[in-house]
C-alpha cells in the first residue's frame, strides 16, 4: 500500500499557485527525491504533507491518514526537518535531544538508549554539552536530523537537509540516510545537489508547482534528448557562441571551463564539432562523450519546460 498519496493536491496563495494539482504516490520504504528550481513548490509540498498547512484543493493521505482530518495521527508517525536550521541555539546538543524526546513522550530507559544511539550514529558524542549554535554547519544538520529521529518515525521529511554543508559532512549525512532506508524508513528528501538526487529510488522534478517528471533516476536521465559531448574549448565564450548557432546542437550547457553539447549522435557530433571549431580558430582539449548525469538532465528538462511556457 502507498504510504503517501496525493490527489490533485493544490495550494494557492494570494498571487501564486505554489502547488498545482499534484498527484503523487510514494511506496513504503522508498527514498524519494524532490528537485526543482527555487520557488517550484517543494517546501509547500512538504508543509502540506506534514499537515502543517491545509491544501486549497485536493487531498493527501500519509500512512493512510488524511492530512486535514487526522493531522495528529500523522504527526506521531513522521519526522520533519525544515529547511531553516530550527533547533534551539542556546540549548546544548543533549538538551535539544532531551527536549524532543520529552515532546514525543519517549521516556525512561528507552529515552536514554535512544539518545545514546542517535549521538553515536550522528557522531556527536563528544559534543553533548556544546551549545547548538556553536556547532559547525554539518554538525548542526546532523543534530537536527537526530532530533527528528528521536521517536523512530516511519516516514522522514527532509527539506534541503544538506544545503551549505561541506562534502565530507554531506557524505556522512547521506550514509546516515542510507542506513535509515535499510531499516525500512520511508524518506522524502528535497535537494539542490543532483548527485544526491541520483541516490534516491525515485526522483520527482517540480516546476512552477507541477510535477513534470517522476521516475527512477536512470529513467529520468534517459529523458534527455540526444547524447552529451564534453569539451574544454579555448577561448570558451567564442566557442559557446559558435556552437549555440550551430544547428546540430540540441542544447549547450556551460560548466565552468567545460561545455556540454547535446547532439543526436555523439560520434558524428564530435567529428562535426572538431571541424567547426577548428575553422574558427578555437582550440579544443579533451573532447569525449559522457553519460548524462542528473545535473544535465535537470537543466535540460527545466529548459525545455521554460521554452514551452514561453511559447
Amino acid at each position: 500500500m502507498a504510504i503517501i498519496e496525493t490527489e490533485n493536491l493544490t495550494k494557492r496563495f494570494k498571487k501564486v499557485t505554489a502547488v498545482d494539482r499534484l498527484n503523487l504516490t510514494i511506496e513504503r520504504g522508498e527514498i524519494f527525491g524532490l528537485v526543482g528550481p527555487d520557488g517550484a513548490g517543494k517546501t509547500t509540498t512538504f508543509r502540506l504533507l506534514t499537515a502543517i498547512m491545509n491544501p486549497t484543493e485536493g487531498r493527501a493521505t500519509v500512512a493512510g491518514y488524511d492530512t486535514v482530518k487526522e493531522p495528529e495521527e500523522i504527526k506521531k508517525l513522521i519526522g520533519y526537518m525544515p529547511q531553516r536550521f530550527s533547533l534551539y541555539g542556546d540549548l546544548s546538543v543533549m538538551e535539544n535531544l532531551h527536549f524532543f524526546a520529552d515532546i514525543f513522550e519517549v521516556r525512561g530507559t528507552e529515552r536514554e538508549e535512544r539518545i545514546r544511539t542517535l549521538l553515536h550514529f550522528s557522531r556527536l558524542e563528544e559534543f553533548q554539552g556544546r551549545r547548538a549554535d556553536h556547532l559547525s554547519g554539518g554538525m548542526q544538520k546532523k543534530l537536527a536530523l537526530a532530533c527528528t529521529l528521536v521517536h523512530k518515525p516511519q516516514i522522514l521529511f527532509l527539506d534541503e537537509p544538506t544545503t551549505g554543508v561541506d562534502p565530507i559532512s554531506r557524505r556522512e549525512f547521506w550514509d546516515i540516510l542510507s542506513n535509515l532506508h535499510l531499516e525500512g524508513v520511508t524518506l522524502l528528501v528535497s535537494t539542490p545537489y543532483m548527485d544526491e538526487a541520483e541516490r534516491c529510488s525515485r526522483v520527482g522534478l517540480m516546476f512552477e508547482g507541477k510535477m513534470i517528471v517522476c521516475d527512477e533516476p536512470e529513467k529520468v536521465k534517459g529523458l534527455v534528448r540526444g547524447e552529451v559531448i564534453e569539451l574544454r574549448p579555448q577561448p570558451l565564450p567564442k566557442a559557446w557562441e559558435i556552437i549555440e548557432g550551430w544547428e546540430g546542437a540540441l542544447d549547450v550547457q556551460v560548466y565552468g571551463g567545460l561545455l556540454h553539447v547535446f547532439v543526436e549522435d555523439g560520434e558524428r557530433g564530435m567529428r562535426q564539432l572538431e571541424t567547426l571549431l577548428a575553422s574558427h580558430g578555437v582550440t579544443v582539449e579533451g573532447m569525449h562523450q559522457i553519460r548524462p548525469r542528473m545535473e544535465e538532465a535537470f537543466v535540460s528538462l527545466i529548459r525545455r519546460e521554460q521554452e514551452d511556457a514561453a511559447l
Partner: protein
Amino acid sequence: MNSRIIPIMRKEFIHIRRDPRTLTFMFLIPVIQLVLLGYAATTDIEHLSTAVLDYDRTPASRELIDAYRVSNYFDINYYIDDEEELTRLVDGGRVRAGMIIPAGYSRSLDRTHKAEVAFIIDGSDPNVARTAFSAAQGVGQAQSVELIQEILGIDPEEQPGIEVRPRVWYNPEMRSANFMIPGVIAMILQLLTTFITGAAIVREREQGTIEQLIVTPIRSFELVLGKVIPYVGIAFFDLSAVLIVGVFWFGMPIHGSVPLLLALALLSLLTSLGLGLLISTVAHSQMEAMLLTFLTLMPSIFLSGFLFPIEAMPLALQAISYIIPLRYLLIIVRGIILKGVGLRLLTEQVIAMAIFGAAILTLASLRFKKSLE
C-alpha cells in the same frame, strides 16, 4: 496528559537562564518603575518655592510671612525689593508663588482691622496652582480668625461656630506612594506578562523553530501553557518584590488578605496571557510584539484610573474605560491592599475579569491555531 507541558517549561527556563540580561531587566523594570512612581510621580504638593516682597517691613508683616512659612506649603526662598524681580523669578521658574505685602499693611491693620495682601500664583501646572491657591487662602483665613479672636477678646476654646473635622480613611496621610504601589502591581501583572508572552512565542517563529514544533504531536494549549507558566512564575516573583519594597521601603500597609490578592492576580493573568498570545499571532518579530504591547499600554495607563480618576473623565472616555481590563484589576488590587475589602465587595470586578480572560483567551487560541499556517 500534561507531560508535554513540562519539557517546554524546562526548555523555557534554560532560555531564561542562558540570557541573564533579559532576566535582569524583568526584575529591574518593576522595581525602577515603583521607585520612580513612588517618589517622582508623587502628587503631594508641598514646599513650593516662594518669593516675598515686603514693602511694610514691620513685626506684623513678618508675623504673616512666618505663618506662611510654618504652613509647610511654602518655602520662602527669596526676599526681594521690587515687582520686576518677582516677574523675573516666576518667569524663570524659580518660584511658584509670590506674596506682596503693601507698605502700610501694619498701619492699616491697626487702624481699621483690615488689610490687603497680594498673592501671585504660577498657574501653568493647574494641580500645583490649585493646591497653592487653597493653601494661601487657608493660611490667610487662619490669620484672620486669630485676629478676630484677639480683637473680640474671645478665648479660642470658647469660640462659637461649626467645626468641620475631615477624616481620611485608608490612607490617612494621603501619601501618593500608597496609591501608586497597588497600581504598579496591577501594571506588572497586565503589561509585563502580555509582552513576555507575546515575545516568547514570536521568538519561536522568528527562529523557525515553531515549524519543527508544530509537526510534533504537541497541542497548541500545551505549547502555550508550557511557554507561559515560567513567565507567570516570574511575574509573581516581580509582584512579591514590589510588595516587599512597598511595605518595607515606602511603609505601605496591606489591609486585606494576601492570598486573595494572589488568587485574583492569577485570574487577571488569563487576560494578559490571552492578549500576549493574540499579539503573537499578529506580530512577525519581537520588535513588533513590543510595539503592539505599547499600543495597548497607552489606553491602559490613561483610561484605567491608574493615574487619573475615571469619574473626572469625559463621558465618552468613561465608557471606553469599561473595556479596559486594567480598570477592574486596579479596583481589586487597591481595594484589597488599601481598604482591606474581601471577595464579596469585589464580585462585580472579579466577574468582569473572568469574562475578559475567557473571551480573550478563546479568541487568541482560535487565531493561534490558524496562524500556524
